[in-house]
């Protein structure tokens, strides 16, 4: 699948959860399609997100109690499951963000040192 889009990135393992949580926190309750669209827009289409891959992440997050899904209707009057971030989700987001910052800082530092 990566051959068709050379300059697009696959989602780094483990970061999708973080991205989804972050999106939900800033946008409020959203259905999967809106989340996918939003992520794609935000990454300016750099991030290749096969929309279906979002589901395992959503299911996982819901089982962990970090988001909660409820069925509702969209503006276009279609039924969809809307996900909202929970308290424990916000806490996890904060922790993961911190971890990510440290990690990416470390990687940055390593890379710049090598250069």
């Amino acid at each position, binding site marked *: 699948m990566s051959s068709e889009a050379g300059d697009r990135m696959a989602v780094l393992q483990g970061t999708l959860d973080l991205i989804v949580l972050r999106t939900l926190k800033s946008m409020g309750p959203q*259905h*999967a*399609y809106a989340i996918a669209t939003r992520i794609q827009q935000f990454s300016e289409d750099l991030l290749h997100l*096969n*929309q*279906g*891959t979002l*589901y*395992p*992440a959503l*299911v*996982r997050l819901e*089982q*962990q*109690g970090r988001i909660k899904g409820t069925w509702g209707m*969209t503006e*276009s009057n*279609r*039924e*969809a*499951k809307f996900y909202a971030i929970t308290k424990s989700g916000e806490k996890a987001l904060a922790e993961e963000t911190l971890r990510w910052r440290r990690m990416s800082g470390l990687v940055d530092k390593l890379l710049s040192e090598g250069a």
Partner: protein
Amino acid sequence: MRRFLSRFANLFRGRDADREMTREIDAHLTLLQDEFERHGMSQEDARRAAHSAYGGVEQTKELHRDARSFVWIEQFFKDLRYAWSSLLRSPGFTLIAVGALALGIGVNATIFGIYNAVALKQLPVADPSSVVRVKRWFGQNAYAYNYTFAYPEYQYLRDHNNVFSGLTAASSAIPVLASISNTAPEHLKGYAVSANYFADLGVNARIGRTFLPDEDRAPGANPVLVLSYRFWKRKFQGDPNVIGQTIKLNSLPYTIVGVAPQGFTGTDTTPIESGFWAPLSMLDQLQPEFGPASDSTWREQFRDSSHPGFQIIARLKEGISREKAQAETDLLIHQYLAGYRENQPTLSVTLQRTSYFGSAGDFWLKALAAAVLTVVSLVLVVACANVANMLLARGVARRREIGIRLALGASRGRVIRQLLTESILLSLLAGAAGILLSAAASRLLWTSLVTVIPSLQQYLVELDVGPDAHVITYGLALSVVTGILFGLAPALQSTRSGLYSATQAEASPSRLRGLLLGIQVAVSVLLLIVSGGLLGGVMSSFAKASELGFETRDTYLLSGRFGSDRAKANASIQRLRDRLETMPEMSRVALGWAPLQGAIQFPMTAEKWKGQATATWASDAYFETLGIPILEGRSFTRQEGDGDASVAVISESTARRVWPGEDPLGKRFTLDSALTFTNYQVVGVARDARFTVITEIDPLHVYVAGGVDRGRVLFRIRGNRDKALLAAQAAVDSVDPTALSTLDMVSLEDGPVAVQRGFLRVLGAFAGTLTLLSLTLAGVGIYGVMAFLVSQRTREIGIRVALGATSGAVIRNVMLQGVWPVLIGTLVGVAGSLALERAPAVQGVRQFILSPPTLSDPVFYAELMLVLAIVVIASWIPARRALRVDPVVALRYE
């Protein structure tokens, strides 16, 4: 935790979750498609574009499933595989553990299986869950109820309720004389039922038809029968041409219109095997005593005690709850009864779920089941303690393995889970074996119950005691609980020391082991003492007539229904007596209450004395007929007996208790027999007898004059038995031919005495088996533990022997290890049995537990010696093995 639950639920909800996922993916695709359409695509193109943007739907589902299911399922299977191979590695241990547990679980499943068949299986009718039985309560007391209603009550309820889709009435069992095409008549029991009985219960005829809607209306019309399957098989060899044939009941011909299906044996609360069903219109003919009476018929008027009782079974309307139906039924019956005065006012009416054995919801059955299940679970406790001990021993042996796993980073929880998986696997294997075992055992137990108690044969329906879903669920649930119960402590124990002691010498888990050993001994002692009492009951069940205090072989009890009119019936009974007295085949004839037929105690007061005494109403010649010697004074005269004179004969024990050191003759006492409050004068003293139970002399017994009213006819025969019985039958025929259909004559030996004997023996055999089982288990358990201890101490013993310890010293040393737990266990067991003896519940059945454990009873010490002997043997064998330890091998050990 929530996540755990949701994942766990997902294990079982796979299909639901899949559906939910499909719904969500579809919704997503629709939104995508909308978007593409908004950009001007055709609907079809948009759909395709949406799918391609989304990616593979099936791949997504698979990913989704992965996220949904879990790592620990995988771990579980790993654990399971590991457990399995570790069990296979030590087949000896596995076999013994599975065997011990299988016995324990099997015994429990057997008892539960019988309880299940009797109380939990529902009536063999269509949709039994919506069928209820109407029950009448007279008081708050758990025993104050019955299931009978008068016909007008049934009618009123049927015509006024809004909660039932059907309401059926069935008479109590009606004994008749049945003859098929001029063969000799035989006794048969059947029921008169409302015409809607089969239709509303949803029971279809196997062949022919059931009753038509109006077949029960006109009295005496429609002499038709539906035969029971078993009667049809027995008398007609399952001939399908039986429909349309006639059969005579009490010499009136009835046409057979159908045969009931095999599983349907009736709906009576007592499991009486039904031979036939007839429409209610034939009740008067089937049971002549309810024929047109002087005042009115049973159909029209409510008569309190003399109406024929009907059991009502109803089907709830769809959507009506039992509570709602019960409230309305209660209200309607009270409405109906408002205009009548009842002897025993109806307090409330409830609806009971129908089980195969009608009175299953009753208190006594539940209490009995609880008691028996408690006893058998004690056996399981012994088995559990046994296996727990073996696991503990294994845990010590596996310390290294466990230590290494912990050292490699397995969490303690993970290791415990693995050990528990092993023990649950073990118990599930045992459970499966136990269920198979119980299938055979319950059939055996039931068959022996029925064969040992002859009186059960005639009226107990064939009971299907095979294991069903209930029993299997129970057995497996019990296994899992058992597995956790015996597995947890050893698992905790053997992981506790963990890393630290993996390389240390034995960190002794001996306290827990001692506790388990003690529990086994305690339970075994308890069971042995209790069942020793029951076995005592078996021994004394062989009591001879001389010990019973009355004659049993030649004395017969005659019973039959002589009509519902009390005065007429009494006159018939007196005429019958007069008739029998003239016959040369009879030596003595008397009227009165029969022994061992449920003796009743009444409050009794003498001058200074107050208490409860068993009372028996008796006519003249009563003592001579039963062969009870009069020691002092005299028995009753004919006038006294027939005239209910206020005179009494008391037993010698009564004389000693109430008037110690005095002459009882001429003394007076008062008996409060619920209806009358009579002051009696003592005219005689009779030798003690066993009227309540065959194992024990009645502590207090008074015979009072009377016996015509509600009494039975007792006669003592002379010479040939068959000739005498034929003569008695002829006498009944000449006095009241309608009573012939209900006539029953049985000697005291084959009747009441045999019933009690059978009961005591079954009880004793059952208790004996359980005790044997628990002793064996305890013996094996002690042996196992001791053997293990010896093997653990191989090295030490080797050194001792090498240093010149004598064999006696070694054996003593090994055997003393188990001394404390055994001693304490024994004491606890003894204390428990003494406490049990005083428990009120046990006092109620004390009549059957004959030799209560008293500290002065040699039997008691014999029982203790037995337990100790088993303990000694079980620890002596391994101790001897210790001696054979070769010091050289021992020192090289490890």
